[in-house]
């Protein structure tokens, strides 16, 4: 019985594929630290090392991709990001990320916006988007 439960647990929580951070391929960055990724998606770090503005794309708070991205990549919870964005937006000290409604839209937006960053659960082969790891 315990074995069945354990097996079920492992099977259920193992994601089919890890979430990857994607960036527009014009950005000359090869990896990010977790702290930097948190600062970018927390809307506190606003420009790339070359000075160009960072444009952050996210999916809806309740989407599986967003939840997995927060937990697996940033190691935080979606409500924490939402609270950080709200503090910036309603005190005037920052802006919110741009929301997309599907992974297809995410791919399209990151591909067409220089300076764009987002995330994806599926593999992508596209010469206008690159996947970058955390270091």
């Amino acid at each position, binding site marked *: 019985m315990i074995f069945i439960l354990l097996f079920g647990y492992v099977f259920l929580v193992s994601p089919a594929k890890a979430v990857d951070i994607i960036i527009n391929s014009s950005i000359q960055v090869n990896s990010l630290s977790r702290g930097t990724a948190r600062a970018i998606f927390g809307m*506190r770090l606003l420009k790339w090392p070359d000075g160009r503005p960072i444009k952050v794309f996210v999916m809806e708070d309740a989407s599986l991709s967003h939840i997995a991205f927060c937990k697996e990549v940033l*190691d*935080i919870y979606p409500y924490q990001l939402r*609270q950080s964005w*709200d503090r910036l937006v*309603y*005190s005037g000290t920052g802006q*919110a990320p*741009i929301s997309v409604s599907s992974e297809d839209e995410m791919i399209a937006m990151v591909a067409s916006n220089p300076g764009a960053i987002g995330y994806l659960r599926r593999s992508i082969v596209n010469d206008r988007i690159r996947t970058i790891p955390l270091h």
Partner: protein
Amino acid sequence: MIAFAQYRFIDNGHFRYLLWLFKTFLILAGGVFSMCASGAEISENLQIHGFASQGLISSTHNNFFGPSGNSVSTEYTELGVNFSYRPHPDLQLSAQAMSRRAGETDNGSIRLDYGFIGYNLISTESTKAGFLLGKIKNPLGFYNETRDIAFTRPSIVLPQSIYFDRTRNFALSATGVQFYAEHTNDSGLLSFRASVGNPKLGDKSSEYAVLGGDRPGDISGKTSYLGHLMYEWDGDRLRLAVTHGKVNSQYNPGASDPFASGTFSFSPWMLSFQYNTEKWSFTSEYALRESQFSGFGPVLADREVQGESAYVQGVYRFAPSWEGLIRYDVLYQDRHDRSGERNATLSKRPAYFYYAKDWTIGLRHDVTPSFMLSGEFHTIDGTGWLPFEDNLGSVSPVRRWNLFLFQGAYRF
């Protein structure tokens, strides 16, 4: 008969209130919806956001935000719209217009909540420093900067011991300059903010707070200071903050005024703690509040009072888009007289005017990401933060009272 009924209807406060609500919302929202249908990013680097909330309040005996005592008050409405424009990553312009109705303490007039220009003098991957110039919300504790936006609050009304609504203007915002510096690394974020500016006072509630009533003269803000140091560890898992401020004001007497031109200053020290897990958020804040009165003449002798406030709060996210709240909140007007007895003897008012102990439970449901419903129940011993202006009738406020609130809130 018809004429009489019509007259009664038009004369009814609710009708005028609805008309006001409609008009205000139209003015605030009109401009926005003509520019966009969905809110948020309007064009490159320009964002528009807004919020609206309406409360229903009922209480036993004492009034809180309108005639809620043994009745239902609808006089708790918050409406606002803001824009932010970032032409360059280091430059941002922001402004928010809002209207707030809160019983007799706030009349719903449209005002500039904040409006400033911000510029980063230094911005690298790990360090940012710069300034804001204009009308800026004060970073007091965790909630003050966004205190009027229902979605950012853990409850319908913030813990009143620290975020008291009856004299909110002393701590709300200031027109001046704020300097900020923050440093990020893999373990966390350290930030410091310091501001110099003038608070906007000059309303009735400030006079009630300082001089115990609506007086012939006016209170105006003088140069004031605020510092806020915060450490956020491991992506907000642990958040710690220290805030210290000194808010200065001056009373300019009116004709045949019993009070001379005195000064009042309010200097809070505040410690803030929050620990976040997937299901729970534990928050606690403590404030030591020093008030100084000087030069008001024989009617109000020079004095210093140290007030003390604290709350402990747990928020439990028990299902997706549902959360529960439990909080204990306590306020002492004079920390050297927690029972209020000494102040009661001096002022000939009841001792329970000088403290308030509030147990709160609440429930919140985010129906959609932009629409939320919440309800909460308070059981309170003492009237230490009860709004003065809502309770001016001949019946004195009672010591033990309950407060029920229900709220619908929208944002974009």
